[in-house]
Structures are given as structure tokens and as C-alpha cells.
């Protein structure tokens, strides 16, 4: 946000904030380490709001849970904005000096009265008002979100709606206040940092900027394409058109992790050539022409970057098994096979080259990372100890750098509409003991494991005449599957939930829609219209 690809705040600030808003995030289960910092914050007296369609185990910790309708986040955020303005809780000094487009924003949110927001979101007006008042008057406030915000056809607008709230109240750029998109795995942030994005070079440097590109070209001794590449949804389109014919998949399982799995299989099977590089033989890898077995953590040197932008060293403890190799070694050998005489570098050599080009990482030598127990970027040179939080510049007076813009965004309902044929809203997510498609977590047993089931409210169960464990048929406009029913108090009537962990048994992405956000390329995994039909009794253990 504001040009930087990371959360603004450190974990320490989460622990010391006065108010924590968990928005579209079941961090208690999906980000348990991050949630420990939230728990410390609660122990220190922070109040917590949870905005989530389900009363998740995260929401169970909240002072107030707002049970929003799936995909109505913008209406809620805009109504909060309107309420904050009308109560005079907005930070006029900050808005004037550090932001722009406020008038446009104020005009936009003026249409979102509490009553209207209640109608759109289903959340009682008083609760929206309470959240607005507490956020507007908190000393230090954090908004943390995850896929409940970003897995929508209007993901970027959702994020902007939250950023607007921080700009409105000055809850950004200062100690304890911030915006935190919590990362789904230990090194998702690191992947972005290193330029594993279609439009960014390492350090979030724009690939379409010729000066920046030139610096990389000079060091790499090669020309870099001047246009941004395709994000995943554009890749899907290119595959559909037949213009993308070869795919190199590193550490991903798109066959099972992407929306509308039937379509995805068709795409991957239509490719001329696919390479998969992974630590496991995933379902995707089974379709590949060539598989490179890769080293896992503990088998390779390198760094991880956490959600608080802290870069930490990881070390090799054991050799990779069998023919598996370190990713760097695989890439260098591949280059040599293609006729480039690359020396296989150490992880540290690769890192040093990268930080010579990325100002965010300039001062992060391995030696300093080790001595300081990790460093949070930006750390431009070795005189810098990194930063606790980002965008402190917004509080410089006079502010000489670029102002942060408000973005007026409008609510737009999920693409997959509910109607008489598909009356139930299905949303997806993760559970504590499993990770994504289960490639990693499905290999061990867990006493907490809940297998592939359809979670329904007990009331819906009564309505359907089914008991826990009964098989039902779940049908969306794209596909259909069978799953046993499990009752879950965290759901209200009309709302269903499936985890994404068991693509081989209950492949929820047969149901999901691949409508995607044009700005981020993320598909709308969170909002599927389904119909549930009972088909049998007690066929599968609960």
C-alpha cells in the first residue's frame, strides 16, 4: 500500500495497540503465530473487533463480532467512514497534510448510511456504529486482514476501503497504528520481496520503470522485458487462448488450489510443456512433463521474511533426500543446460547481489541478520537497523513527499448471485491443522483434523432434514460434489463453509467461481452460490 508491498506494522505494535480489528481473517486458525501476538495485545488490554461472516475461533476472542454477509465489506467500511466523519472522529490535520482526494471519498461514503449498510451487510447498525466510534477514537488501532478481504472479484477495492479508514483517522504511519495484511505462510512476504510478482523486480521496484530496470540489467547482464508479466488470472486467460504454452510451476499446486478446478485441469492438460519444481509430487506435478525435486526448509540456506517485514536467516541442517536439490542449484543447472555458463552461487552470494539492487534490503548482510535476530525492511544500508513501521513520512510536517490518496470505492455484490436455485452462500477457508490443498499437511495425522465436510448451521440441517454425517450433494453453477454434513454453530442459516484442504475427497474448487479481480488477479474463492440436496444417511464418519 502506498507503494510498499507489506504490512505497515511490527508484531510488537500489535501487542501494544488499543484496538485490533480482525477483518476477514481467521488468524486464530490460519495464522496461529500471528494470533499469538494478537493474544498478547488482548492480554495487555486491547479491545478487538472481528468482521467475518462466520463466528470463527478468532471471532470468539473478539469483544464484538460483526457477522457480515460475504462480500459486503465495502459497504461496512464506507458506512464506518461516513459515521466517523459525521461524528467528527476523523483526523482533519492528517487528512489535510498527508492525504488527497478526501472530498471525493467523503461524497462517496455519504451514500452509505448505517441503515443502508445494515441492509447490505446484515450487521446491525448499532454494531457498525460501535466499531466506527471505537476505531475513530482509539489511540492506537490496527486493521488486520487476510483472504476474507482479498479472495473477491473486487479484492483491491476491499483493501482500499480499509486503507481509507486508516487515512481518515490517521491510524497509519505512526507507532501502534497500522494496516496489516497477514501473510499465509512463513515466507509469502519474502516471495513478494524477491520480485516473485509479474510487475515487480526485487524490492517492489516497478519493472516498467526503465531506470530501475536498467540497474538490474547492468548487474544481470541481460535484458528484462519492459512490460509487466501476467498475473495468475491473466495466465489462465492466456492458456485458454493458447498463447501461453509452457508453464514452470515452483512450489505451487494450481490444479487443486485454483478456482473452478475442472477448468484448471483442462488448461494444464492443454499446455505443450510443463515443469514442476516442488518438495512433493503434487497433483499438478503429476501432470508435468518434467519434475524437479526441490529441497525443503532445513535442507537449504536462505532467508524468510515474516508478515512484519522481518528478514530472518534460515539454515541448512540436513542434506536434501534422494535427487532433490536446492532451488538455486536447480536454476543454475537449468541455465547451464540452456547454454549460459552460470556459476552455482551460494545463497549468500545471491542475497548480496539482490541487496545491492534493492534499497529495501541494502543493509541486510547475513552477518547483521544473524547478529540482530532479523531486520525489518526498509534497511537501505548498514547504518540502518530497519524500521518498526512504515510510512512515518506521512507525519512529517511539512510533508514534502507524495500524499497518500483516498480511493472512493463502491460496494459491488459477489458475482455468483444467490437465487432460488442456488440459495446458499458457500465460503471457503482453512482450519488450524491443515494447510491449503493439504500437500504438506495431509501427510501427517492430526487429532484435530476435520475431514472434507460441508459445514452448515444446525438450523439449515433441520431445514434439510439431515443429521451430522449424512451425505449431501453440493451443487454450484459450475460443478457438484458429495460431502458429509457437519453442524457448526459459527454459521448462520444460509451460510455454508468448506475447507480447501481435501481436493482429492471433496474438491471445493469444483464449485468456486473464477471471477477475478482485474487489479490483483485474485479469484473470488470466498463467495459461491450453492444448493444443498440430501442424498443419503450416515454414509461417512463424521
Amino acid at each position, binding site marked *: 500500500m502506498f507503494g510498499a508491498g507489506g504490512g505497515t506494522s511490527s508484531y510488537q505494535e500489535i501487542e501494544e495497540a488499543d484496538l485490533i480489528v480482525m477483518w476477514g481473517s481467521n488468524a486464530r486458525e490460519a495464522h496461529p503465530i500471528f494470533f499469538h501476538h494478537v493474544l498478547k495485545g488482548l492480554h495487555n488490554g486491547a*479491545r478487538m473487533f472481528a468482521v467475518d461472516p462466520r463466528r470463527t475461533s478468532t471471532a*470468539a476472542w*473478539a*469483544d464484538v*463480532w460483526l*457477522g457480515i454477509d460475504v462480500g459486503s465489506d465495502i459497504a461496512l467500511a464506507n458506512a464506518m467512514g461516513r459515521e466517523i466523519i459525521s461524528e467528527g472522529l476523523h483526523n482533519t490535520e492528517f487528512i489535510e497534510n498527508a492525504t488527497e482526494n478526501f472530498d471525493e471519498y467523503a461524497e462517496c461514503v455519504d451514500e452509505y448510511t448505517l441503515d443502508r449498510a445494515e441492509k447490505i451487510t446484515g450487521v446491525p447498525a448499532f454494531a457498525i456504529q460501535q466499531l466506527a466510534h471505537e476505531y475513530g477514537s482509539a489511540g492506537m488501532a490496527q486493521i488486520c486482514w487476510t483472504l476474507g478481504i482479498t479472495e473477491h472479484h473486487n479484492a483491491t477495492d476491499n483493501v482500499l476501503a480499509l486503507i481509507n479508514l486508516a487515512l481518515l483517522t490517521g491510524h497509519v504511519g505512526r507507532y501502534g497504528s497500522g494496516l496489516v495484511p497477514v501473510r499465509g505462510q512463513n515466507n509469502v512476504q519474502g516471495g513478494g520481496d524477491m520480485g516473485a510478482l509479474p510487475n515487480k523486480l526485487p524490492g517492489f521496484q516497478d519493472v516498467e520503470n526503465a531506470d530501475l530496470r536498467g540497474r538490474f540489467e547492468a548487474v544481470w547482464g541481460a535484458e528484462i522485458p519492459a512490460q509487466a508479466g501476467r498475473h495468475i488470472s491473466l495466465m489462465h486467460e492466456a492458456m485458454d487462448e493458447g498463447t501461453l504454452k509452457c508453464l514452470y510451476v515452483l512450489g505451487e499446486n494450481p490444479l487443486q488450489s485454483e478456482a473452478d478446478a475442472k477448468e484448471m485441469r483442462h488448461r494444464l492438460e492443454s499446455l505443450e510443456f510443463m515443469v514442476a519444481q516442488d518438495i512433493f509430487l503434487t497433483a499438478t506435478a503429476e501432470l508435468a512433463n518434467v519434475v524437479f525435486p526441490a529441497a525443503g526448509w532445513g535442507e537449504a540456506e536462505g532467508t524468510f521474511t515474516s508478515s512484519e517485514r522481518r528478514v530472518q536467516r534460515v539454515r541448512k541442517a540436513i542434506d536434501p533426500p534422494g535427487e532433490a536439490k536446492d532451488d538455486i542449484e536447480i536454476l543454475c543447472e537449468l541455465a547451464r543446460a540452456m547454454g549460459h555458463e552460470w556459476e552455482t552461487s551460494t545463497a549468500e552470494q545471491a542475497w548480496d547481489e539482490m541487496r545491492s539492487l534493492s534499497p529495501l534490503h541494502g543493509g541486510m548482510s547475513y552477518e547483521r541478520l544473524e547478529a540482530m535476530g532479523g531486520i525489518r525492511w526498509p534497511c537501505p544500508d548498514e547504518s540502518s537497523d530497519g524500521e518498526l513501521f512504515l510510512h512515518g513520512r506521512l507525519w512529517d510536517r511539512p510533508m514534502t513527499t507524495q500524499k497518500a490518496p483516498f480511493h472512493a470505492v463502491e460496494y459491488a455484490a459477489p458475482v455468483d448471485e444467490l437465487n432460488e436455485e442456488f440459495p446458499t452462500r458457500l465460503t471457503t477457508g482453512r482450519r488450524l491443522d491443515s494447510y491449503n490443498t493439504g500437500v504438506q499437511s495431509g501427510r501427517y495425522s492430526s487429532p484435530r483434523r476435520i475431514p472434507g465436510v460441508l459445514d452448515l448451521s444446525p438450523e439449515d440441517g433441520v431445514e434439510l432434514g439431515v443429521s451430522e454425517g449424512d451425505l449431501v450433494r453440493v451443487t454450484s453453477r459450475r460443478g457438484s460434489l458429495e460431502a458429509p454434513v457437519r453442524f457448526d*454453530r459459527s454459521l448462520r442459516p444460509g451460510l455454508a463453509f468448506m475447507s480447501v484442504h481435501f481436493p482429492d475427497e471433496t474438491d471445493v474448487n469444483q464449485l468456486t467461481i473464477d471471477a477475478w479481480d482485474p487489479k490483483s488477479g485474485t479469484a473470488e474463492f470466498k463467495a459461491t452460490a450453492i444448493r444443498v440436496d440430501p442424498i443419503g444417511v450416515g454414509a461417512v464418519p463424521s
Partner: protein
Amino acid sequence: MDLRLMLDRPTEAEREAVDALLGPGDPFNGRVAHGGHDARDQRHLLLPALHAVQDVSGSVSKGALSYICDRLTVPPAEAYGVATFYALFDVGGLGGPSIHVCDDIVCAQYGAEELCAALEAAKTDYVRSPCLGQCDRAPAAMFHQPGVGYGNAAPVTKESVTTPVFDELPNGMVNQDASELTLMRRIGTVDPSSIEAYVESGGFSVLAQAREMGADAVIDELKGSNLRGRGGAAFPIGIKWEGVRNAPGPDKYVIANGDESEPGTFKDRLLMEGDPFAIVEAMALYGFATGATKGYIYVRGEYPTAERRLRAAVGRAREAGYLDESFELEVRRGAGAYICGEETALFASIEGHRGEPRQKPPFPTQSGVFGKPTGINNIETLLAVLDVVAHGGEAFAAIGTSQSTGRKLFCVSGAVAKPGVYEVTFGATLGELLDLAGGVLDGRGMGAVLLGGAAGVFADSSALDVPLTFEDTRTAGTTLGSGSIVFFDDETDFGPVLRRIAQFFRDESCGQCVPCRIGTVRQEEALARLSAGSPLGTVAEEKKRLDDLALVMTDASICGLGQTAASAIQSAMRLGLRGVPA
């Protein structure tokens, strides 16, 4: 809190009862829910919430438990653990009315078994109960009717035990002339529901006097009085109050321990029912002298009349301005757990947990309820404090003996002609108490006397000459304990008496520490084998086993329950009482 709530919902009535206590809850529409800090701050209301649903349903249903858990953010497993700890909560039961029949050592002398037999013959559901504290009018029963409440009945007959009554019983009998009495002077002579009557009888003058003297002077008088606690531990009160007063920090608590559950003890019930305003006055004084801003009166769950009258008294004292906003006073109801009379278990109970005692140190004056400095005293002690402040420590110390100052209440029950609470000056002998109570019933001979209840010791007629003071009983190897004195006539078979005592401890052990949890079970088993004439090995081996168990429980238990669980049984074996295996 991480909650895995059950799917069950409460009934409308249960929900209303919980909401009346905790404030309105969120609608069940999956749109908004309140929890977090506010809910966690109400965690200590778990027992009152369980009472609320038990009161309307006669049991704690899954749906009600789930709703309470949701409101207080308590995991259901934990709340289940708490609810099942307390005998009065019928968790997952059918609900409806219940009959509790006391079959403890006093009521057993008055035909408790015949009552139970009559109920069984009538196919009426009932629950056997440990001592209900109505020993002056045994046999006793307690009734519960959902939506109506609890009622005591004593004495009950085979006919009346099947018909619940909820009218308040008349005040406990005072068999002495009011003019001779100090601690009990208002019992039966001053209307316990009238604050005017209390004030007219000199009430609240001591509190005013104390405020004039100042807190330090109050504590000096207490220290000068040599007043010792009447709950059983005989701790010097001045030292305790000074400890709370000197403890650092702004949050301090004072507690009146009205969880009188020692079998054969009923003096505090008499005081709470008959002189509730005096307890309120003493608590206000306690808060003033120690700097505590919050007080609790913890009343035994089986004492509904005492609880009602104390609640009313607190309300009227507040209306009349005798309690101001500097001191909050709350009445809490126990739920059937002997162990909660132990002070640290009582703290746990107020906090909404299972009544499990804590290790001491730290002592309550340093870390008591909610981990804060806490002063806790028995009801009788608090009334004695009023007398100390009214007349001065020196004058108080002049009464009684040098080590045992002031007046003392004794609960005389069992095989005596006039059971009741008797007030004497320290120094009176057991024989004098027996005379006051009209001697052994029906002119029979004395078999034995149990001093200090189930946790006490048996004595024979040789103890009749021993003055009932802290020092003389210690020398004689007996105890004052809670002031319970239960006589048995010379026809008593003590086998069943000892088994009832052993059963009592097995039932009431909180189960936290191994010596007590296992020891009380093994003790009961050994006694059962002996009485059935089928000892494990020889009788001598069985008795050796009982001795070993006694040693382990006494030495290694966390709290007084386990430490005294073998006391009465061992003393009975030493005395070779009738029916006890020799």
C-alpha cells in the same frame, strides 16, 4: 477464549434467567456477538449463572450450559467441571423438583433412614444430603422447586417429607434467656427484617464509633482483645486484620465465611437468619478497618433463608446509607460443597471455579480472592468483633480465660434433651454444656461425644470436665473446631457413624491432591470391609492400613479436609467405641 460450543440452545426461561444476571445477550441470528474483555470480566459469575438456570429448570441443561459458556467465554468442558463439582447443580438431569434428605450423623439419630425408606416405598425421587445444618430440629430435609426456590423443613416426618414446603422456618431455638446473651442477644428478640429494629437495638452504632476511632485504633483494640477466629483455626484476629490493612495495592477484599458445612454445626445459620444486619455492620467495619473496597458474604447453598435475609439486609443498609459507595457488599450463594468452607477453596468458588484449595503460603492477607489481599472471617467471629469495638479490647480480654477470650457459641445436638446453640463464657466445661442442653436424651447414658464435627475427634465421658477453651482442648487432645458438639447415647453402634463420616469425606474431597482423593476412598473401603466382617487380611492389618492412610492424609494433604479426614475415625478406634472394630 477458544470455545467449542455445543449445538444445544437454552430454553426461553433459562435464557431469561441468565440474561437477568449478566445483562441482555445477543440475539441468535448470527449477526453480532459480544464477548472479549467484558465477558471475561464476568467469569466470576459462573456459579450465580448456574444457580440462575438451576433455579428455573431444576437442572443445568446442555443448552443452558452452552449459553452460559458463550456469555462468559468459558469453555464448556471447564464449565461442566465447575458445575459437576457442586452437589446442588443437577447437570444434564431431568430437572423438576427435588427432595434432599439429610442422613448425616445427627439426623441419623432422629430417623433419617426411616425417611429415606418411606420415600423409596413411595417411589419418590430424592437425594441423600450431608448435614443440612438443622441439627437443632432433626431430622431435616431441603426442597427445591423450579421457579419457586429452596425451602428447608425440620423436623420432617415420614408423611411431611414428600410434601415440599417453602415457607421460612421459625428462627432457630434459643434455649437461653436473652438477658444472659451477648452474641445471640438479638436472636428471636429483634425482627431480622427490620433495619429500624436493628438500629433501635444499638445497631450500626459500632460502625459509627469505629469511623470515629479510625482504622488503626480499631485494629489496636482487636489486637488487645486477643480475639481468635471462631471458624476452627483460632487465628488472632487483630493480626489478620492488620495484615490486610498493611498489604500493598488498592484492591483488597473482605469476606464473611458463611459456608457453614461442618456436620453438627448450625450457629452461623442462626446468626445469619436471626441477626443479618449485624453481619452487614461487621462487614462494613471490616472494609473500613482494612481499606478493602469490596466485600462478599458467602452463604452456604443449603441456607436459603439466611441468604434471603442477608440480601435484604444489605439492600436496606445501602438504602439507609449505612453502606456507602466506598464499600461494595455482595452476597454469594454456595452450591453444596463442604470444601468451600476452606478459605482458599471459597476464593476459588467466588471466582467461579471448582472449589479447590490453594497452597499456603501465600496467605490470604497477601494473595486471596482474585489474587488480591483478602481478609476472611467466620460469621461468629465478625459478631465478636463488634463486641470488641463496642466495649474495647481490654474489657473483651477480661472475659473468659487468658488464651480464650470472650463468649463462644456451641452447637449442641444429637442425643440431648434440648439441642440448640448455647452461648457461654470461655471456660465452661463440656459437662456444663451438656447440662445446659438438658442432659442425654431420655435419661440414657452418654456413649461418646464428637467435638468439632466430622473433622473433629470423639471423646468419652472423661472429657466432660475439660473446659472448652482453645488451650484446654489442645492439652486434652480434643478440639473446639467449629463449635460442633454431637452427643451419642450409650446404645449407639458407632460402626455406621464412622462409615457415614468416611463417606462424607470421600464425597466432599475435591480430588485435587492424591493423599486425600485416594486416601478418603481407601479409608471408607477399609471401614466397609471391617463392618462386613471381611477384612483384607487380618483385622489388625486392616487397622494398620487405616493408620497408614491417616498418617499420609494428615501429613501430605493440601488442606484441612484431607488433614482431618481420619481424625474422628482414629479417635473412635483409640477409644474403642461400641461397634468399632477393636
